[in-house]
């Protein structure tokens, strides 16, 4: 019998990597003495990345007002540190994970749609609930399902079997992955997150986004879990997770309540309707990340 997926994964030596600059920027975000100068210098050490960040800051998605931003320094000033970190991470993650053997294009598309939708919705939910996660919720939303892309890439047959099983039986992916891979996308994601040396909060969210009450950063995991649900409700699901749900019955809801967040006062319907508009931004965002030149050139 073949060894389990997680064991085989550990033996693979060409797993995708994140550019070191992206990781540094992510960790800079936690330093109390972080300055615009420090972040700008760090990104500049990877000139192609720096150019892309600047172009993205000037894209129609991020651009505020008419003025073209000429330097990273000014871009950080305009958009804020959190947003620049989001941009840097998105660009790095997309470039690390898109170019390789794209076996099943449709699943890839779903994956990115769902990831970006969850990131954008996490930002919205965070604002609604006044959690002040300072942009970290966006990165966490973007990366929460990273295990799925790894499974799809290196254990394609097993992953597709889980996908089909989930569709046929209307069961969540993490359950059917367990059945066909002997592991799930949370464990696989956690493994890669540790390998990449991602900040602890990201490792935590990747591992516990389906069970935020177990997380070491429960607030963040709960926000991402709510965003994950909302993304699915807005028809951005990755894989076959289209089951109906009651938000108020979710683990994340209990976590938020317990931590004193006023969830009962939240107008969930309104939040759902607002997500529709966010849904419209998902494709635009992905296009900008994949191809920042387009947005940057506009009326430049």
């Amino acid at each position: 019998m073949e060894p389990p997926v997680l064991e085989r994964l550990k033996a693979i030596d060409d797993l995708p990597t994140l550019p070191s600059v992206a990781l540094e920027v992510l960790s800079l975000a936690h330093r109390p003495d972080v300055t615009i100068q420090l972040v700008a210098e760090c990104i500049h050490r990877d000139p192609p990345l720096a150019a892309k960040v600047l172009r993205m800051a000037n894209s129609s998605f991020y651009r505020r007002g008419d003025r073209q931003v000429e330097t990273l320094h000014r871009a950080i000033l305009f958009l804020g540190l959190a947003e620049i970190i989001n941009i840097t991470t998105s660009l790095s993650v997309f470039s690390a994970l898109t170019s390789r053997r794209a076996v099943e294009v449709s699943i890839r598309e779903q994956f990115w749609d769902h990831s970006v939708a969850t990131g954008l919705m996490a930002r919205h939910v965070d604002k609604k609930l006044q959690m002040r996660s300072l942009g970290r919720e966006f990165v966490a939303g973007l990366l929460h399902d990273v295990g799925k892309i790894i499974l799809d890439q290196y254990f394609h047959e097993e992953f597709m079997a889980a996908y089909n099983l989930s569709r046929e039986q209307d069961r969540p992916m993490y359950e059917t992955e367990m059945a066909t891979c002997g592991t799930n996308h949370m464990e696989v994601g956690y493994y890669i997150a540790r390998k990449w040396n991602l900040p602890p909060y990201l490792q935590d969210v990747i591992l516990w986004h389906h069970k935020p009450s177990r997380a070491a950063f429960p607030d963040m995991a709960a926000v991402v879990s709510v965003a994950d649900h909302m993304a699915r409700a807005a028809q951005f699901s990755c894989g076959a997770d289209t089951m109906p749900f009651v938000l108020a019955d979710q683990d994340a809801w209990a976590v938020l309540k317990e931590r004193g967040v006023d969830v009962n006062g939240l107008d969930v319907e309104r939040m759902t309707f607002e997500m529709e508009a966010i849904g419209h931004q998902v494709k635009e965002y992905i296009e900008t990340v994949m191809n920042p030149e387009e947005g940057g050139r506009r009326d430049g």
Partner: protein
Amino acid sequence: MDDRLKNPGPVMTDETFVLLRDFIYEQSGIFFADNRKDQLASRLAFRLKANNLSDFEKYYYLLKYDQNAARELRALFDSVTTNETSFFRSPPQIQAFQDKVLPEIMAAKERRGEKTLRLWSAGCSTGEEPYTMAIVLSQVMNGRRDWDVKVVASDISEKALRSAKEAVYGEYSLRSVPPEIKRDFFVAAGSSYRIVDEVKDMVEFQFLNLSDTRRVQLMRGFDVIFCRNVLIYFDDQVKKRFVSQLYDCLNHGGYLFIGHSESLHNISRAFKLVHFPGALAYKKE
């Protein structure tokens, strides 16, 4: 050339959009997400014209402070809810009804040894909605004859009810109907389409004023209620009373669908809000 230069109409600023959007949501429970700004602007442009106003800010003040505000509000509701109805309107709701709600309810009933289903289209207008429900129901039944199923359809307009009972529709009403459903459930009659008898006979029409508390009280034992874009015509107090009546009309485990982007947030806490892909529904546990 910019459309606005060709056709200089009033422009809705983002600030005014938010004012109007929040006002409409507060008054009607209907929400216009940011991506629907142009839609709102084009619908309200007619109201501006009717009131001889030059911009949306003035219109907002009219709604808020004018002595005729109540009357204008009604006209506003008419223009923001597309009054026309069609088959398979708001497809994600129909999908949720077909794929999740009906199978869930039927499975629960089968476990209890019950084989009856009662659905209600409250405010059925010219019949597209109840016939859609009946079509879906007969698809889910898939030839099973041992279930006793019925769709009750009510409206306050005798004229609409007469037209509904005719069960004949033009091409336009069928614009969202998938071809195989058109083939199986409609019969071409000249340039129109007639609903097949099998589906027609499932639907029972009746006159009903939904604000008539005593009459509504007699409606009992429903498994699913569709009441879409109806609540906006009631004031807050009537709305609350009516929705709590709808709750009583439902069986345990039953579902209520209201209009897409309509909300019960400030109206009732009795239901469980259920998210489906692209649709919301309210469940009585």
